[in-house]
């Protein structure tokens, strides 16, 4: 003997027929309300079936999905490598950049320093005679002149009119 609830479920699922159907519908106190409830229940069932069933993917969607996953993995790997590369300080490009920068600074300083030093260097380069004098009592006609021989960077103090001496004075 089926209970009311079992018969109600079977009626809603339209599994009742014949005499059982007519007896159940006759037993309903408000058939119109029951029909409305049945229709609502069926609609809800259809909606649930439609929305909750596993969605099947087409081939294109499947490959597109796989492709996106691969791209995402590749990006992750590339980002990891880039982080590793950044963590190493003396990479080849940085070495080259540092070398080029150092060379540029060296050249700039060299040019500036050489440019500033050149005029003074000529005077520092050669020996300078600050003053020279001969004893006027010993050599009354004595004069001095200064020459610079740039070929060998020799400075010459040239005297004239000094007292001549005999060859004996050449002794060691």
């Amino acid at each position: 003997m089926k209970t009311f609830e079992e018969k109600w479920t079977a009626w809603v699922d339209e599994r009742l027929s014949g005499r059982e159907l007519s007896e159940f519908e006759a037993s309903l106190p408000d058939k119109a309300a029951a029909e409305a409830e049945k229709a609502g229940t069926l609609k809800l069932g259809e909606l649930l079936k439609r929305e909750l069933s596993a969605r099947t993917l087409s081939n294109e969607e499947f490959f597109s999905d796989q492709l996106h996953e691969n791209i995402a993995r590749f990006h992750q790997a590339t980002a990891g490598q880039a982080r590793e590369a950044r963590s190493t300080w003396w990479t080849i490009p940085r070495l080259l950049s540092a070398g080029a920068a150092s060379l540029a600074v060296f050249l700039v300083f060299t040019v500036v320093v050489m440019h500033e030093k050149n005029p003074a260097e000529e005077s520092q380069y050669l020996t300078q005679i600050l003053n020279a004098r001969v004893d006027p009592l010993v050599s009354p006609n004595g004069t001095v002149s200064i020459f610079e021989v740039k070929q060998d960077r020799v400075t010459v103090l040239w005297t004239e009119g000094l007292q001549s001496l005999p060859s004996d004075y050449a002794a060691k």
Partner: protein
Amino acid sequence: MVRSLAFLVSLIALTMGATSVLQGAETVWSGLVIAENVAQPQPIPPELTRIEGSLKKFFGYNQFQVIGQSQKTLKTGQEDWLATSKFFGLHVDARGETEAGYVLNLKLYKEKELLLETDTKLSKRSPLVIKGPQVGGGQLLLVLVVQ
């Protein structure tokens, strides 16, 4: 990395220190030279080799003989010394060191008689030659070179 940098800095500092020490102790050669024209000239003394061409061209002699010399290593730049021959004496009084060389006071004596006095800045790269008196058929030259 830090250790390498520290090592490099130390090496440069040591090299610079050693260089300045080496630069601080230099030797000045001063010589009394008789220049003459002879038929068989003697080889030029090694101290004059680097200025041989200038000496010959400028003074017109073919032989240069050292009759007195002195070699002085300057440490403070305040030293003085004497280069002498039998009759001549060259007194050199160093009066300080500059970046370019030494400030020197030079006095040439014939026996006790002062013939010539000069103040000069002797460059480390530029020898000084002073034409002295005529001696017989030749010429007395005074030469100072920073070696």
